[in-house]
C-alpha cells in the first residue's frame, strides 16, 4: 500500500482525469489525498476525498483566444497559483507523508515541493500543449514561457538552472493522456531529455457523477444523431456559436437529430429535430452518436474518439487549436474556424464526417489505440512502479548508510 498526493488546478478538464486515476489507485488499496481549491475539488471528488485545501483563487473563464489566452494562462494563473499554493502543498506533504506526488503540468508548486522534499514525483499532462510544441515557429513565445518558468523558480527561491529539470516534466514519470496515433510522439521546447520519461497512457475516464435525465423516446434510429457542445464558454462567445449551429441544422431535420448542450433559455425555441439541454448524459449518448461538434477540449475530443465518433472541431484557445489539428491530421474529423465559420461551412463539414466512411474509420483506429494504451489502469501501473522503485532505492540507501556507520 502506498500514499499518493495529487496537486491539481481548479479546472474541471484537469480534475476529471486525475480523479479517474485516483479512483483506480484507491481501488487497488492505495491511499490518495489532494491539494487544491476545496470549493472546486469537493463537488468533483466527493465527500470521502481527503483534501488539503490551498485556498481558492479562481481562474475565471476568459473571453480571450489564441496567444492572448496563452499569456493570461501563465501570467494570471500558473505563475501566481504556484506561488500562492506552495505553502499549502508543503503542509500537505508534511501531513500526509506521500510516497509519490503527482503534479499537474500547470500547477508546478507540486514539482517544486516534491523536489525540495526529495520525493519521487510524476507530472500529469492533461493538455497536449506542452507535448506537441505548437509555438516552435515563434521562438520568442517559447522564450517567454521559459521566462515564466524561471519566475516560478525565483518566487520559490530556486535558481532555475540548478533544478536539473523543467518544471513541466518530471524526470521520473510524465503521464500524457493521449496516444501517438492521435498526438504523435511527444516533442517539447524544454531542454533535451525532458520527454525521456513521458508515457502516453491514453485518456483516463472515471465514473461520472449522476447522469442527467434525457428524453430517450425522442431519438429516431432512422436519423443520425449529432452532439454539439462548446463546454464552459464565456457567454458572449457561446451565444454566437450556438446560433450559427442552429442555422446550420435548420434544413437537415429529415437526416439529422442534434443535441445542443447549453442553457436552453439563451436560444430561441428549436425545431423538432433539435434538443437543447443544459446537461447531457454524455456516456449514455456517446454510443448512439454519429458525430460530435465541439471546441476541442481534450476530454470531449477523447471521449468522442474513444467511441469511434468523428468530430468537427472549432477551437478557441489553449490546446484546442492543437487538438483540432491533431484530429484533422489523423483523418478523424474536420477543423473549422470558431470565429468565422458560417452555418453553411458547419453544415458541409458535418455532412462530410457523417457521410464519408474515412472519418469514422480513423476515429475507430484511434479508439483502438486508446484501449491498447490502457488509460487509468496503465497510469496507476506506472505510479505504483514509481512508488516501488523509489521506496526500494530509498531503503537500499538507508541500508548503505547504516552499513557505512
Amino acid at each position: 500500500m502506498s500514499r499518493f498526493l495529487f496537486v491539481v488546478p481548479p479546472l474541471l478538464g484537469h480534475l476529471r482525469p486525475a480523479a479517474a486515476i485516483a479512483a483506480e489507485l484507491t481501488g487497488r488499496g492505495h491511499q490518495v489525498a489532494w491539494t487544491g481549491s476545496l470549493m472546486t475539488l469537493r463537488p468533483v471528488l466527493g465527500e470521502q476525498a481527503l483534501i488539503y485545501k490551498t485556498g481558492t483563487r479562481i481562474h475565471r473563464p476568459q473571453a480571450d483566444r489564441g496567444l492572448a489566452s496563452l499569456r493570461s494562462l501563465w501570467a494570471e494563473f500558473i505563475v501566481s497559483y504556484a506561488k500562492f499554493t506552495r505553502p499549502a502543498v508543503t503542509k500537505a506533504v508534511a501531513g500526509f507523508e506521500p510516497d509519490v506526488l503527482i503534479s499537474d503540468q500547470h500547477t508546478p508548486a507540486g514539482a517544486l515541493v516534491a523536489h525540495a522534499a526529495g520525493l519521487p514525483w510524476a507530472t500529469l499532462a492533461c493538455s497536449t500543449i506542452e507535448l506537441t510544441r505548437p509555438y516552435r515557429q515563434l521562438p520568442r513565445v517559447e522564450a517567454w514561457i521559459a521566462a515564466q518558468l524561471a519566475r516560478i523558480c525565483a518566487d520559490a527561491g530556486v535558481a532555475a538552472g540548478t533544478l536539473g529539470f523543467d518544471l513541466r516534466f518530471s524526470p521520473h514519470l510524465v503521464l500524457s493522456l493521449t496516444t501517438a496515433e492521435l498526438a504523435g510522439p511527444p516533442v517539447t521546447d524544454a531542454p533535451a531529455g525532458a520527454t525521456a520519461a513521458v508515457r502516453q497512457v491514453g485518456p483516463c475516464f472515471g465514473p461520472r457523477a449522476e447522469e442527467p435525465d434525457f428524453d430517450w423516446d425522442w431519438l429516431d434510429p432512422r436519423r443520425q444523431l449529432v452532439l454539439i457542445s462548446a463546454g464552459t464558454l464565456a457567454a458572449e462567445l457561446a451565444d454566437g456559436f450556438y446560433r450559427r449551429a442552429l442555422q446550420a441544422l435548420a434544413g437537415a431535420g429529415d437526416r439529422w437529430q442534434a443535441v445542443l448542450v447549453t442553457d436552453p433559455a439563451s436560444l430561441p425555441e428549436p425545431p423538432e429535430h433539435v434538443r437543447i439541454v443544459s446537461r447531457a448524459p454524455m456516456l449514455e449518448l456517446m454510443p448512439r452518436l454519429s458525430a460530435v461538434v465541439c471546441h476541442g477540449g481534450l476530454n470531449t475530443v477523447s471521449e468522442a474518439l474513444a467511441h469511434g465518433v468523428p468530430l468537427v472541431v472549432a477551437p478557441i484557445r489553449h490546446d484546442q487549436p492543437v487538438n483540432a489539428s491533431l484530429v484533422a491530421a489523423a483523418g478523424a474529423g474536420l477543423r473549422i474556424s470558431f470565429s468565422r465559420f458560417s452555418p453553411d461551412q458547419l453544415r458541409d463539414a458535418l455532412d462530410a464526417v457523417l457521410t464519408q466512411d474515412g472519418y469514422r474509420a480513423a476515429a475507430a483506429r484511434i479508439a483502438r489505440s486508446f484501449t491498447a494504451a490502457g488509460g487509468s489502469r496503465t497510469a496507476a501501473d506506472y505510479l505504483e512502479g514509481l512508488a516501488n522503485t523509489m521506496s526500494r532505492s530509498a531503503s537500499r540507501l538507508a541500508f548503505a548508510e547504516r552499513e557505512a556507520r
Partner: protein
Amino acid sequence: MRAPDSPVAGVLDALGQFVGVPVAAGDRLETDLGLDSLELATLAATLRDRFGDRVDLSDYLAGLELDQLIELTAGQLAAFVAERTRE
C-alpha cells in the same frame, strides 16, 4: 496617393479573402480576425505565392515578442509586405 495595386491594399485584400470579410488596417489578426498561429502558417504560404519569396511571414513572426504577436494588426502585416517588396 496609393495605387489600387499597392502592396498595402493587396495585403488587406488577400487577408479579406482569407477570412471572408473586408479587413481594415487596424484589425488585429488574432483578436479581431480570429486567425490563430496555425492559420498564420497557411497565410504565410498565400502571401509568398502572391508577393514573392522575399515575403517570408514566418521569418517576420519569429522575430516578434508574445505581446507584439497578440497586438499584430493587418496594417503592420501590410507594412512588412510593402517593405519587402520595395526595391
